[in-house]
């Protein structure tokens, strides 16, 4: 089994796992190590680092997010103008033309697809969908 060079510090802080039985904790950690060492996740982490260190990409994403929020706000009170839509389309076009952002989006999708394959593998053996059991009820 290939061992990853290091456990990359990505995502949020680890949640408390003191209630996980030791065998399950070990198996979970083994799965994490293998996910992180897989090609889709290595590519995702690499493009994520590149995206975070690219100020132009960051600015574009922040701009797009702000415009989308503003447009949603305007939609609720019916004050969206043609200029608003054109501005959003222009920023969307810039995002799509940004290689760093497109690489990030593409590698993230690859990682998600791989994670789904992994979930299918787990669920087949359990006879129940693991992701459904693991979802947090928030509504």
């Amino acid at each position, binding site marked *: *089994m*290939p*061992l*990853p*060079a290091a*456990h990359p510090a*990505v*995502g*949020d*802080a*680890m*949640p408390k*796992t003191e*209630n*996980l039985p030791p*065998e*399950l904790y*070990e*198996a*979970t950690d*083994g*799965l*994490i*190590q*293998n*996910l*992180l*060492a*897989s*090609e*889709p*996740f*290595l*590519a*995702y*982490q*690499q493009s*994520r680092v590149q995206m975070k260190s690219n100020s132009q990409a960051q600015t574009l994403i922040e701009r797009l997010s702000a415009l989308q929020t503003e447009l949603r706000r305007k939609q609720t009170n019916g004050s969206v103008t043609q200029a608003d839509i054109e501005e959003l389309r222009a920023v969307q076009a810039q995002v799509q033309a940004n290689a760093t952002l497109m690489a990030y989006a593409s590698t993230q999708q690859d*990682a*998600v697809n*791989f*994670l*789904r*394959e*992994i*979930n299918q*593998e*787990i669920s*087949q*053996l*359990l006879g129940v*969908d*693991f*992701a*459904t*059991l*693991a*979802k*947090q009820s928030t*509504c």
Partner: protein
Amino acid sequence: MRNLVFDDIEIAHVEVAKRAARDFAAALAETQQFKAFEQTYEILSHDVAAQQALSAYRGKAESLRALLMLNAVSEAERAELERLKQDYLTRASVQAFAAAEAELTALCQQAAGMISAAIGLNYAASCGASCCG
């Protein structure tokens, strides 16, 4: 897959990662929580009275579906629907299964949370499980 260069990093093959997934599933299946979940499910699925109570509730809910959507169900009908629901929910086999399911869910959330934090993606959301079922 596009060409990628990962200097000095050993890449795990897909099959190795899938084996780790199966090892994880096997470890989860061995937990007391998963065994209780399976056991209580088995008991519930063989509890004829519980299945009949569920069927009666579903039948009533279905017959009132249009009225429920319009919020036009009479008090008596609403009370009857609630009684049928409680008939099902208060059965021992249903309560035992619900408790076991809650225990297993908590365990799975913890394991998935550990995975999500490490990989930088929300496991359940990425795999298509929405919070609204």
